[in-house]
């Protein structure tokens, strides 16, 4: 097969028309010019700055009237070289970088990277139970906050502003929980190789239970607002159709795949972090359209609530249990502590290394500056992020830094479906189709 041969289609005619730069207030001149040329076919650049494109996504649409004949994505506007940066940091520092990729699901980025590192270290079975439960708890809370944003922004884009305001209202509650548990609302770097960074703070379980109670009252509001709303259904039903064969061919996972009726969820099919111990259902729909994806996200939040409840129950019985692997050559030597002026260095730990034990000081110094070595090899442990299969291909050459860390981000892969989902449809449906994919450009461009 040669390079000049297009395997999908014969090369079409390329013709160049007139170029208009639309900046507002100049519609008259544009309609006048188009009227003169009497040409229906227009190529429209949508984005990269556009509120409805979920960040800096550029869409190149070829329109005939209001019908989209071709849709292409231009990405890369948010590329920050995170994978390259990680090659010059220690294995633990890697989590602070990858957490920033898909900024709506930071715990998933950390978790897949950390699971890969743990597999290479061969400590998968040594990670304490409490750390695994806390990971699941945070990931499920994160699934809810991510789905809330997906529903909120998706609603806003079709004019359902109340959906947006209540979506962000509930997301705020989840972020408050994150702040309580990890200290940060986003970019936590909380899941670390060997466990998690910090034990649960006092009172966290009560807050989580209060949140679950509140969410049980508020989640039905979304159903009441949208599920049978004729305008909402009218905009979403049958839009962005992609069947199972299309999904598999294009590598689409997550709610888009499950909206075809196929119950593929890595939490069930290839469990990690002890997901096999939790009771929940994989949510599917059979319409393969945007409406089905919305309903799946809504139902998945209920399932996440169920898992969060189970996590809270298990954590109540694990008070005081370790949250970091016992191997002192891997575990971070210190934890933060609450002082009179807020959270900071643990004074007990500082007393220990500065006043009591020279070996502890050396150990602390070596682990913090040099880090640990990871045996050479490669690992890929994918997890089910809110958007689908998220995996980190982690390669080590036996050194103190990742030799290569590549993230298979579901947003990146799923965004390839833009063309098949929107070509032949109306231009207004492009927005709905993309919203149903729920791409996060931080994850797409990394």
């Amino acid at each position, binding site marked *: 097969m040669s390079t000049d041969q297009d395997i999908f289609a014969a090369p079409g005619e390329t013709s160049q028309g007139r170029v208009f730069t639309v900046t507002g207030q100049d519609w008259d001149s544009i309609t006048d010019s188009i009227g003169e040329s009497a040409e229906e076919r227009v190529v429209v650049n949508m984005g990269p700055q556009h509120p409805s494109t979920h960040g800096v996504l550029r869409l190149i649409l070829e329109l005939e009237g209001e019908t989209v004949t071709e849709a292409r994505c231009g990405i890369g506007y948010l590329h920050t070289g995170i994978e390259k940066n990680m090659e010059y940091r220690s294995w633990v520092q890697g989590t602070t970088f990858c957490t920033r990729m898909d900024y709506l699901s930071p715990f998933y980025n950390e978790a897949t990277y950390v699971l890969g590192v743990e597999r290479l270290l061969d400590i998968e079975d040594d990670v304490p139970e409490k750390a695994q439960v806390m990971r699941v708890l945070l990931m499920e809370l994160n699934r809810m906050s991510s789905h809330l944003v997906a529903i909120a922004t998706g609603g806003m884009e079709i004019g359902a502003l109340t959906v947006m305001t209540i979506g962000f209202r509930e997301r705020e509650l989840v972020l408050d929980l994150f702040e309580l548990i990890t200290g940060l609302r986003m970019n936590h770097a909380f899941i670390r190789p060997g466990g998690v960074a910090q034990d649960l703070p006092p009172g966290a379980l009560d807050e989580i239970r209060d949140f679950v109670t509140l969410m049980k009252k508020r989640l039905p509001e979304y159903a009441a607002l949208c599920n049978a709303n004729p305008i909402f259904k009218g905009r979403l039903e049958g839009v962005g159709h992609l069947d199972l064969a299309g999904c598999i061919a294009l590598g689409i996972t997550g709610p888009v795949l499950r909206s075809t009726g196929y119950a593929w969820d890595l939490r069930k099919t290839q469990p990690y972090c002890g997901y096999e111990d939790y009771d929940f259902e994989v949510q599917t729909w059979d319409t393969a359209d945007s409406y089905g994806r919305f309903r799946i996200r809504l139902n998945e939040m209920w399932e996440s609530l169920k898992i969060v409840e189970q996590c809270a129950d298990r954590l109540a019985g694990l008070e005081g249990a370790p949250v970091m692997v016992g191997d002192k050559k891997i575990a971070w030597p210190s934890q933060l502590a609450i002082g009179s002026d807020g959270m900071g260095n643990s004074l007990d730990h500082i007393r220990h290394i500065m006043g009591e034990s020279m070996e502890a000081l050396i150990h602390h110094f070596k682990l913090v500056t040099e880090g640990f070595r990871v045996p050479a090899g490669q690992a890929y442990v994918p997890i089910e992020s809110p958007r689908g299969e998220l995996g980190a291909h982690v390669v080590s050459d036996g050194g103190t830094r990742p030799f*290569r860390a590549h993230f298979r981000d579901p947003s990146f892969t799923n965004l390839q479906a833009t063309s098949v989902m929107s070509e032949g449809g109306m231009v207004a449906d492009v927005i709905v189709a993309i919203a149903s994919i729920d791409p996060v450009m931080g994850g797409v461009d990394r």
Partner: protein
Amino acid sequence: MTDKPDEKHAGRAEDESDDKTDKNEAARPAEERNLEKAKSETGTGSGVEQRAPEQSPENLPGPTGEVHAVGERRGMFGVTGTGDTSGYGGLVAAKVFPAPTQKPYGGWFDEVAGALEARLEATELTSAIESVVVHRGEITFHVRREDLPFVAQMLRDDEALRFEFCSGVSGVHYPDDTGRELHAVYHLTSMTHNRRIRVEVTAPDSDPHVPSLVSIYPTLDWHERETYDMFGLIFDGHPALTRVLMPDDWPGHPQRKDYPLGGIPVEYKGGSIPPPDQRRSYN
């Protein structure tokens, strides 16, 4: 039995004499020390840089079985030359990657490998699989690059294999792996059998070509573009192999290990901070 203790004893005696010279370092005449310093700086004579025979990579104890060494690691703190007063700068360790595994691989790995081999034998392409590595519960098939499309097509379509889902391709650049510098790594999933394998092909830097798999796994469209963008791997047969993350007119391929990092030389009291790959660091 009689020889070994003698050897050990001899070794210990040598160590002791080394220790003595170290301890007496300060007591030696200044001219001698300066001479040694000059020798080591110019790379002549027997300075600290010279490698002791028992430290060379081929003498290091490797894992049992076949060894797949890619390059070597020198020192511990990233210090070379006379700045290294610890002596650790002379350490040389081979970078050893998991070696090819011999049969049986265990579990369903054998079923997949068996089915693949049976199909390859039927088509007289027995040498398509270069080696199989089982490491940490994951199986990797190293495939000859010219046979990649054929193998992928079989992996996808054969009833016993059915790897219908491809997670994407990830490039890795091993500058020390002579003749196989660029690796393209595919992660395949069989949703039918709930299995996961890895397929790896290599290409030399001088001929960075790998056949495209877009016609078999359309999802690889953007993934191959990304790998081309980041590593310069050219996927022959890709419908439109252009950059996807970097700007169209970007020079170079950033994820390659030889890509100049540049950095910003920050001056502080006359000194400047070099780019991250040239900084002193643990290695």
